[in-house]
């Protein structure tokens, strides 16, 4: 630096820069570990020990979870009864189902395969029903459902917005319009009626926040085209739990929806007689209808997939752990061995 010496500075030809030290120092970047990229860092290295232990550990965690999930699934007792073929007479199924006056009552007898502890959940299952169609999913208006002053809010509800004379429909839209309306009545063994509790089958948040307790159905299913079920205009939407459950659109074309709860223990070999009203038209699109009675475990209903998946992944991990151990024993590599550097390796990289 030019100001560093008191001895005679030589040819000023090479002198450069001016200004005071203070100005210079102000431009000096401030030191901090962050700006200098010197933050303390953890630099884990995948050693064979680590690799093998990680795979083993994952295996050790996954297999028990898989076993537990499978056990839970196996504890669940499920009765599935497909009835849409048996509950319709003759050839003209569509004509029968669309005829409002035809008798649609049907009787099914179910046998309990194993003890079913209460509560036993009752579901209806539809098949080939595209509740996830874009046109269908969008055809509702949440504002109208929760606020009685917003009955006129029917945007998005096409084509079930208003009646023919322009009065808004509450609840509007295709979802509500196509409400499922089969009904089930259960009799235990020899005629003792099994009550189905239909309260609290929907999410509490739906009842309290999404469907207004002062919003009543208006002009619903009054048009020329009748879709599914009708609603009692005296009961506020927040208490129309079948509608609330139906309005939670399913992700897949096969879905179950909660119908109610039987709050009685069912014993093995008990018979249950179901008197059902086969009102809902699935015949046009060839959909199946099933009645499902099921208990639940901590994981929910009967589904072995989760357990199997856990067991498979756990198994793969054990396998990989073994494989790495074997390969490592057969062909070990000294860590940090410079001979593995590319230039010692016949210039593999070039």
């Amino acid at each position, binding site marked *: 630096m030019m100001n560093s010496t008191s001895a*005679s500075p030589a040819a000023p030809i090479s002198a450069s820069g001016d200004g005071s030290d203070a100005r210079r120092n102000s431009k*000096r970047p401030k*030191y901090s570990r962050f700006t200098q990229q010197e933050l303390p860092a953890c630099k884990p290295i995948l050693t064979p020990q680590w690799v093998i232990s990680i795979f083993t550990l994952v295996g050790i965690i*996954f297999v028990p979870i898989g076993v537990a999930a499978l056990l839970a699934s196996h504890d669940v007792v499920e009765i599935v009864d497909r009835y849409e073929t048996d509950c319709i007479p003759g050839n003209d199924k569509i004509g029968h189902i669309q005829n409002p006056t035809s008798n649609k009552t049907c009787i099914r007898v179910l046998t309990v395969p194993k003890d079913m502890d209460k509560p036993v959940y009752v579901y209806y299952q539809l098949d080939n029903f595209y509740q996830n169609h874009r046109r269908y999913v969008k055809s509702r208006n949440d504002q109208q459902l929760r606020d009685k002053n917003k009955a006129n809010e029917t945007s998005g509800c096409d084509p079930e917005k208003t009646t023919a004379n322009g009065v808004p429909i509450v609840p509007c839209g295709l979802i509500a319009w196509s409400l499922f309306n089969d009904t089930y009545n259960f009799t235990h063994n020899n005629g003792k009626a099994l009550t189905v509790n239909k309260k609290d089958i929907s999410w509490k948040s739906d009842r309290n926040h999404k469907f207004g307790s002062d919003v009543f159905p208006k002009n619903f299913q009054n048009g020329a085209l009748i879709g599914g079920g009708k609603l009692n205009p005296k009961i506020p939407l927040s208490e129309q739990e079948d509608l609330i459950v139906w309005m939670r*659109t399913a992700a897949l074309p096969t879905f179950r*929806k909660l119908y109610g709860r039987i709050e009685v223990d069912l014993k093995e070999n008990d018979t249950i007689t179901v008197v059902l009203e086969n009102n809902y038209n699935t015949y046009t699109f060839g959909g199946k209808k099933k009645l499902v009675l099921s208990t639940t475990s901590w994981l*929910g209903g009967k589904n072995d997939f989760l357990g199997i998946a856990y067991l498979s992944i756990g198994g793969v991990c054990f396998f990989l752990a073994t494989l790495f151990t074997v*390969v490592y024993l057969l062909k070990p*590599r000294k860590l940090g061995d410079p001979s593995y550097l590319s230039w*010692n390796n016949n210039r593999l990289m070039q």
Partner: protein
Amino acid sequence: MTRAEKIRDKLRREKLRWSKIYTFNCARANPELIDFANPFNGLQGPGFSRKVQCNQPSLHRRKPLHYPSNYISTTKYNIITFLPKAIFEQFRRVANLYFLLAAVLSLTPIAPFSAVSMIAPLAFVVGLSMAKEAVEDWRRFMQDMKVNKRKVSIHKGDGNFYYKKWHKIFVGDVVKVEKDHFFPADLLLLSSSYEDGICYVETMNLDGETNLKVKRALDVTLHFDEDKTFKDFYATIRCEDPNPSLYTFVGNLEYEKQVCSLDPNQILLRDSKLRNTSYIYGVVIFTGHDSKVMQNSTESPSKRSSIEKKMDYIIYILFTLLVLISLISSIGYAVYTKFGMRNWWYLQPENASTLYNPLMPALSGIFHLVTALIMYGYLIPVSLYVSIEVVKVLQAMFINQDIQMYDEDTGKPAEARTSNLNEELGQVDTILSDKTGTLTCNQMDFLKCSIAGVSYGVGSSEVEIAAAKHIASEFSGSPGHNCFPADYWDNNVDDSSVIQLEDGITCKVVKDPKPKIKGFSFEDDRLMQGNWVKEPSRGTLQMFFRVLAVCHTAIPEHDEENGTFTYEAESPDEGAFLVAAREFGFEFFKRTQSSVFIRESYPNPLEREFKILNLLEFNSKRKRMSVIVRDDSGQIILFCKGADSIIFDRLSKNGKMYEADTMKHLNEFGEAGLRTLALAYKVLDESEYSTWNAEFLRAKTAIGLDRDAQLEQVADLMERELVLIGATAVEDKLQKGVPQCIDKLAQAGLKIWLLTGDKMETAVNIGLLRLGLKQISISTMNTDFLDQDAKKAFLSCLEQNIKDNILLQITNASRMVKLEKDPHAAFALIIDGKALSYALEDDMKHHFLGLAVDCASVICCRVSPKQKALVTRLVKEGTGKTTLAIGDGANDVGMIQEADIGVGISGVEGMQFPALYQQGPKNLFFDWSRIIAWTANGLYSSIVVFFINISIFYDQAFQSEGQTADMAAMGTTMFTCIIWAVNLQIALTMSHFTWIQHLFVWGSVSTWYLFLFGYGFMSPVISGNAFHILIESLGPAPIYWITTFLVAAACNLPYFAHLSYQRLFYPLDHHVIQEIKYFKKDLTDEQMWTRERSKARQETKIGFTARVDAKIRQLKGKLQKKTSNLFNPPKHEINLPPPCIYSTANLAFSRQNFIASPNLHQVETPLPLHLEMKVKN
């Protein structure tokens, strides 16, 4: 004395008539008076329309002579153009264009999402990028303003001068520029503080040349040398239009009915600096963007990095994929709509709109195609560019903040002007460097000398220190040694360390503290403090010092603060010599028109006057400089200094006494990377001199084209029969960190091209060349001595000839390079600016490039800025590799803009392993197989996420309360899985976790849950089915958490397995090095780094390491001899004060007359390709 008197005194002293002293520089025939009847010959018509009314700038503010003001602007945008231009720039990116389209479409019912969710991210992304551009352009603007607001003294009328801002200067203004100030515009020199109107100009910013140039005003304007004289100054200049050629100027000055022709000698260019001259007066000819330097700058392009370009390709591919998926999806949709939907009564197909009409499935399908294109648009990440941009801005910030890139000397931190190109830094293949200023300090250090066949000076050059350290460490081999061998550049060595070699030779490496005297690092007690008088050859020594003190063109300046003299010299070498002479006790303190005064301290202090009779100054053709003086005893002596080859050719029979020894020393100096000059003298008798002088005067006053030739011939006659005194060796210190940097770059396999405005000799000296490198020179005939018109005529008729000749040279050289059998042979291509201009023509450039690529280093000398840019473009486009241009001044702007990256070098980080860099240019981490592998991994993950979720949430209840999962529950679970899978993936790819990584990886995951929680608390009108989703349905359900865990593991399993496999069995270099560091192997095996380093680096034939290697070979050879000679131990004391092994060894062996092993003296083999066509006038 009052201050004013002092100044006047100074001015008087400076009123030297240099033109009388100089023989060649100011040689000019009488001012050419042009035939007044036809004064505009050649200066009319297109290209020569400029007319400057001197001292009447007001005439140039309006038509017809309106020229732009001196305001310059290098910004990309201005306030009005910013918005449209920046937006255009943004939507040049394919992805942004796609998102714009999607955003527009999202306003229609076709869109699957709400308009806000499409527009908001796009606006954010584009806004951020534009803000970045704006900030960067603002910085450029501020820089321009800084330049525009510089002040210069301007004639306001009536002989009064005022300071005015640069941007207010107009053509025709008379300006007064003071010493060490930049010229504000292109000026015509009128007069200077020197009586004969010469001035010194430093053009480093312009063409990179470091030596000062002499400019000389026309005689007719010489008398305008005071403010007052400009009261009535009127003249007209007619000249060429603005053009980028720095070395030409054609014009006339009409003054008082005389017409004088102007040439580049009178033109002072913007951005060059006035040196060694108190002030000059000049008339502004070209202003602002008309000035030559601005003409040389090309439009600053919006640079897009190669990654960004590649990313565009990826986006095209993704887009194709997207279209394909959407097409399949919409065909399926159309089929379903036609055959399925009419039965789906719950959709009321009879009332359906066109979007879903089963009667018009094709139309619905087309609409669906658009929807799908938008919906699957997540294939093209909207945040792709913005995340890269944010990363780059941060990188730029880190670069700017890096203390290691902070330069203490100038107080400047590194400054990344644009953050667009950071990632390219890792992919550079070819470096194009401007030499001077950028690489060297341009500060000469007098280090050694050889006088009367004895080598003096024990200081060591950088090359020697490094070689000695290396050898020493290799011989001692003991761990924990001070001379840590891993790094030639280890600066942590103690100030002084003694290395004991096995055979008893002691090497003392002295890291001397900063030299106390600038330009003088010489150390040798035999000469210092007047000790030289005790040496046997004191007479020769005295003569040597006198040559140093007398033979120059410098002016002493008294520094009143500490009472010493500083010197204003034309070249830094001269400055160093004068400082050296002063330190030896021969202080040059005064120069008059005819004499040089020296204060000699030893043996007895006295002042001597040397009358300067003639001065034959240095030029690149002569490569020597002589003065003829009469000393105080009346004796006439010629002192001469020059390139060794030139001097050796001119020795008398009696003058060759020291030739052999000096030659040997010169070789040693050269190998040590020093610049050498030989010194000689000759005593003349009176009659001999007067005969010669008469002839010389005749030549000097001769008129005609061959005057220069005559002068040279006469000078040549005098500079013969010399007596050799010795030689000097100065070190042109490279800028701190630069040699290390170049060295590492070379080791990392980068090619380095040197594009310099300097002369060939200076350029070759830089250290990029080592001995033994075969040089290929390509040049044209020398047309320097022809005057303009003749040259033009010649060029036009010989153009084709020259071109053919150069092509022949290139093809010959290529053939030779190809035929070379020796794998270690390295070639250096040296080409000068003129030959380059032919080589760069379209039909030749590929031959040229082909040859250049085969050479280890390429040096282009005397190239203009435009050529620098052209060469850069040629390399960039011809090789398709990333280029990096290093430069420091305006002369490099074109090159810097043309290159993929432009930087100013300051040094690289210490322990970076250069070999790892090789992964960069090879693009190991961004090649197509990697891209495809990652895509496959992504596909796998998406399949896993989708099907596991579908299967788990199939139809049964998903928790113990019996409810089944609806769309919202399933979707949310899926997304949670994605969040985990992706972040785990990121964590797995990282090898370096600081709190920042932890924060961002785990922070992303937690943010998702926080978002879900918060969003769930918003009104159901907004959140819809996501209302209370986490706290009510998903949170309490164990299956939600278990699924996440399963999917995250399943997604990352293959990648982790691959990673483990690769790391365990096929590690990449950085893995191994990480392990070495982790297990601290380097502490137990000290030699390892050195060993691996030497293996890792690419064969480097240039740079410091190559030189050190050569030195090491040499030393080893000597040591071998030494050990074999141990049977007769040498008599001399080995523990001599010389502080470094090589000097010990040198002394030892030179005294015993050892013949060095043959490989040490690799002799330069200039090829017979240097064809010179003699053109006869």
